[in-house]
């Protein structure tokens, strides 16, 4: 069983909702990321989504765009991100890590070479934002050959046919984008999310994570009542941005926020 499936199975048995934080690798500087990942796990993260910096992040709002620019300015590229995961794995062989990013850096490395390098580094899966199932054939094959999961986005605009189509190729979990918009945008409509999740679960037999627009512990608690995983990105990256000039404080502050989210989720799950 993959690390991702194992994690969801374990939490499912405990009737708990997973907490998935997202951070951009190398933001604000490369040396921050690995210690930060460990602190997030200690504070209650179940899976870590690591953003791979790309020059043209069309699905990201201003907060993650700026994080990407900070990481790129420090020279952080896909190979460096793989290296961070390799170092993370030296002390953590349990927590799944999923890379989230755009196709071009993978494309230029080669799909097969990327999959092999990711596997070797200890990556568990990838979410490639600009690859819908229509264009994903080569990538799916390459990742499957290395037993890596390919996580897909689902959107409020995905109809039944698209949900089925994505279900046919997705693995690990699916990521429901809870708002029409970019990362960090909009206001959360939990009832709307719940209705869509029912539609998704009727067609896809994978855990469903919900993200894009979860800003605080209250949002996390409300979403955890309906989702298998709560994904929080911009709210964390925004905190990192505020501490970009004092990076030594980042792990402490982010871990505090993760613990807050964790507690809210666990309280809600057991309510």
């Amino acid at each position, binding site marked *: 069983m993959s690390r991702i499936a194992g994690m969801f199975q374990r939490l499912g048995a405990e009737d708990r909702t997973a907490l998935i934080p997202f951070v951009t690798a190398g933001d604000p500087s490369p040396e921050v990321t690995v210690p930060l990942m460990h602190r997030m796990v200690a504070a209650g993260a179940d899976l870590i989504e690591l953003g791979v910096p790309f020059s*043209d992040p069309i*699905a990201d709002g201003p907060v993650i765009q700026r994080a990407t620019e900070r990481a790129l300015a420090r020279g952080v590229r896909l190979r460096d991100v793989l290296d961070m995961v390799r170092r993370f794995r030296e002390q953590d062989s349990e927590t799944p890590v999923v890379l989230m990013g755009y196709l071009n850096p993978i494309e230029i490395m080669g799909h097969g070479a990327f999959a092999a390098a990711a596997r070797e580094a200890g990556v568990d899966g990838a979410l490639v934002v600009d690859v819908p199932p229509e264009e994903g054939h080569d990538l799916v094959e390459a990742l499957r050959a290395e037993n890596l999961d390919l996580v897909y986005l689902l959107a409020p*605009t995905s109809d039944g046919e698209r949900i089925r189509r994505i279900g046919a190729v997705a693995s690990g979990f699916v990521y429901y984008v809870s708002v029409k918009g970019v990362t960090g945008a909009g206001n959360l409509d939990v009832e709307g999310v719940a209705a869509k999740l029912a539609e998704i679960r009727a067609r896809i037999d994978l855990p469903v994570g919900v993200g894009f627009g979860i800003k605080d512990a209250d949002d996390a608690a409300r979403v955890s009542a309906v989702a298998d995983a709560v994904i929080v990105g911009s709210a964390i990256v925004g905190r990192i941005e505020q501490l970009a000039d004092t990076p030594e404080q980042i792990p402490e502050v982010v871990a505090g926020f993760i613990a807050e989210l964790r507690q809210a989720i666990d309280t809600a799950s057991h309510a």
Partner: protein
Amino acid sequence: MATRPDQTTDPRSPTVGADGYHWPDANGHFGPYGGMFVPETLMHPLMELREAYERYLGDADFVRELESDLRDYVGRPSPLYHAERWSRELGGAQIFLKREDLNHTGAHKINNTIGQALLARRMGKTRIIAETGAGQHGVASATVAARMGLECIVYMGEVDVARQEANVYRMRLLGAEVVSVKSGSRTLKDALNEAMRDWVTNIDNTFYIIGTVAGPHPYPAMVRDFQSVIGREARAQMLERTGRLPDALVACVGGGSNAIGLFYPFIDDAEVAIHGVEAAGDGLATGRHAAPLCAGSPGVLHGNRTYLMEDVDGQIIETHSISAGLDYPGVGPEHAWLKDSGRANYVAVTDSEALAAFHALTRTEGIIPALETSHALAYATKLAPTMRKDQTIVISLSGRGDKDMHTVAQLDGIKL
């Protein structure tokens, strides 16, 4: 194929023909290029657009409205002008200029914005968004939005807003909101990123008018079809004027919409040589250029796979050209395919070669071309002397140079 000379106003160009050129395929691919590389949220609106486009292309009312707008509002057909004096000076082939500079708003861009705005209205969209570099597509979008009473937001990189003040003012006069984009390199590619972000957020009421033959399917095919009025007219005009097809076509290529517009109706005419001209900036060897076809590599950006200016890690790199309209790190996927298949030849000319051609045409023919267009002219000055005097070249004179007065004057040390 809908490329016979008697069909000069038919915007249709079947993507699957009984014979001959038939790209893109049903999924929007031109060989390995093109496609729909977008976040899931955009798949539904793109499918919706594709359906609407396919439906209205066959709709007699739509076609009639488009034809009448192209005639009465844009001023089509545009003239085909025999540049006799310039041809004589170059001492080779006879050069014919397809005068897209004489269109309303001064460039070929409006052929496409008219078509897409009519489509937007039929789809019940009330809000138009567009990206722009030099501002020509932004002006053409703001223009049709004003005429149709649609809200219009134009995204423009902060760098371009500063260097194209006059066009920013034109857009605002026309009632558009110009949003200065401060992310990334703050130029055209970032304006496109920001427009896509807007679209993801406002898909219910918004129509995104992409200004070139790039972006996800169906944009490259749709923009080509709207722009191919250039080539259909030129083909008929050449047959009428000279009794045969031209020997060569030349057009500048940034994203490549005026070039595809001219080339497409001639693709099955093997005897017609096709030349696309990219911006070599300071020279291909310097790395400071905007010539992905000549010096880039394949990758995925802005929804399609094509040739890109990228570094070894797949990050998009900054481009350089004297012409803001060619200052783009990608190129339409159909050009990538025409390059690989060998049907078209792609070359690049430098800033200084383009400037020399700008002055040459202005002095010999009394036509001041856009700096983008001047790249095509510069290549023609190399090509024409290698051809016989009874041979012909058609150049897409894609835009006029009014917008470039400041840039050229500055290079001559004159402050306007």
